[in-house]
């Protein structure tokens, strides 16, 4: 860019061009949403099938979500090293998703405590011939609610309409899941994860690859 006297129109053009170039730099790679979208979709679908078809597995499918943390750490480090500029909302997004992770853990922790406390009472109630849902049928509502928060915030902040729609689906599912059997709750969770993260992740990835190709 050589130095020459500027006209007012040229000044405005430079400002516009540079702001757009900076903005285009903040296209996410999409790997994170794709990873978590697929992991949660698989775990939820398997959990739903397990309840519906009443079969046992040698391991808890949700361990998959814990193992997914390993590649996520590597992805985060790689993306941070590759990123040459930091956006105004980068830190906020990190906090939002950290809060989400903690939120999921807290909901699971509370539900495990609730299950342990209520188990004898529920067993006695069931033994008396009453039908009552497991506590997971309601914990899934809270989980869907927690899923919705970061998804809607990210969707709105990064102008990802699919993610925004996925987040709204999470909240609607949270209400629906309060009235449905546990296996349906997990089917809803599988759809919610696919709509909130997997599909937007694939679309973000496509955009990222196209943009990267245009820069080569």
């Amino acid at each position, binding site marked *: *860019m050589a*130095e020459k006297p*500027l006209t007012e129109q040229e000044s405005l053009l430079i400002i516009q061009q540079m702001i757009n*170039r900076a903005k285009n730099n903040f296209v996410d790679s999409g790997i994170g949403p794709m990873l978590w979208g697929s992991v949660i979709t698989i775990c939820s679908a398997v959990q739903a099938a397990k309840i519906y078809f009443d079969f046992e597995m040698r391991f808890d499918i949700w361990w998959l979500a814990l193992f997914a943390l390993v590649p996520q750490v590597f992805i985060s480090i790689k993306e941070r090293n590759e990123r*040459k*500029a930091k956006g105004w909302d980068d830190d906020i997004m990190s906090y939002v998703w950290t809060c989400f992770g903690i939120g999921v853990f807290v909901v699971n922790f509370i539900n495990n405590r609730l299950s342990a406390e209520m188990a004898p009472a529920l067993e006695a109630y069931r033994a008396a011939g009453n039908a009552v849902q497991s506590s997971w049928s309601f914990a899934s509502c809270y989980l869907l609610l927690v899923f919705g928060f970061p998804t809607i915030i990210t969707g709105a902040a990064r102008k990802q309409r699919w993610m925004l729609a996925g987040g709204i689906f999470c909240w609607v599912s949270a209400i629906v899941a309060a009235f449905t059997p546990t296996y349906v709750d997990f089917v809803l969770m599988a759809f919610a994860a696919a709509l909130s993260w997997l599909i937007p992740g694939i679309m973000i990835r496509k955009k990222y690859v196209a943009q990267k190709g245009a820069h080569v």
Partner: protein
Amino acid sequence: MFKDLDPILHSQLRLAVMSLLIGVKEAEFTFIKEKTGSTAGNLSVQITKLKEAGYVEVIKQFKDNYPQTICKITPEGIEAFETYVKALQTYLPK
């Protein structure tokens, strides 16, 4: 009434640097060089001028054993940029 344009900002490369930095929290020197398409030498001179005017903050550090220069716009820089854009608007036909 036409307002005076800040001579520090009314330069092609310096304006480009400021326009880039206004959109990000901070950016590496290599990022600014790539986006503006300027040479390292020219960019370095212009960033020094912006730094002397108090419009940008320059942080020199090491990342993975390599020197790294980070630039970020200062509150004075944001104010100057906003004033420049407002002044620019007075020149445009309504």
